């Protein structure tokens, strides 16, 4: 079976991140790898670059990784995490400009069909397009 694009969910809230991952698995199935992270090291709301990097590496697929984020800090920290990955992996990770739950479900659906990373990102971002 060919590799599929993986999904990483980054929320300020661990509950939201986990819940979104659950929704993706229930609605789309388990063939697409999903990893999630949320919250800061002290257990409060926030995002953590180290954990985002771990999630990306856990969900790694040769076809690439699409990251879904909630608010601004999650996006900034995700971009930071991508820049701190090994050079070979940096190019194959994108942060999507999409609502976190709907974007994750749509991205995973598209990924399940074998689509490329660019296509998965585009589908997730259709929701945010004008």
């Amino acid at each position, binding site marked *: 079976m060919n590799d599929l694009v993986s999904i990483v969910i980054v929320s300020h809230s661990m509950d939201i991140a986990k819940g979104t991952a659950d929704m993706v698995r229930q609605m*789309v199935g388990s063939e697409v790898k999903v990893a999630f992270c949320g919250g800061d090291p002290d257990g409060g709301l926030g995002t953590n670059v180290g954990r985002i990097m771990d999630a990306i590496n856990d969900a790694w697929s040769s076809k690439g990784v699409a990251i879904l984020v909630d608010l601004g800090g999650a996006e900034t920290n995700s971009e930071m995490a991508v820049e701190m990955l090994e050079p070979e992996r940096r190019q194959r990770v994108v942060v999507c400009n999409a609502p976190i739950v709907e974007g994750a*479900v*749509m991205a995973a*659906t*598209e990924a399940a069909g074998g689509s490329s990373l660019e296509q998965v990102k585009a589908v997730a971002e*259709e929701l945010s397009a004008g």
Partner: protein
Amino acid sequence: MAVGRTMIGQDMLETSANGPFVTGKVRLEHAVGMHARPAVKLTKLAKRFQAQISIRASEAADWINAKSVAKVMALRAPRNSIIEIKALGEDAQAAVVALVDLVAADFPDVGPS
């Protein structure tokens, strides 16, 4: 050529060859209409086929690409809509039959391909 399939309490379903397109119609029985979960299942199934596949939720509506999860989710066809499907390509017949079956059987879980 018509292929019929009935389920208890449902109208006759038919698929037919219509010009270069294969078409099918099926009543949407799902309790809350075409919401997100069925939409995802429909799209996933459509993507397994090579054919171009379009669907619409009524004769008045525009055809939309059945492989576009965003468009299918936006359909929000209510219960009792007649979903029309048309497909063009090598496996068009199989695609239409599969999609009609999916809707008729009320979107059962399918295993991974």
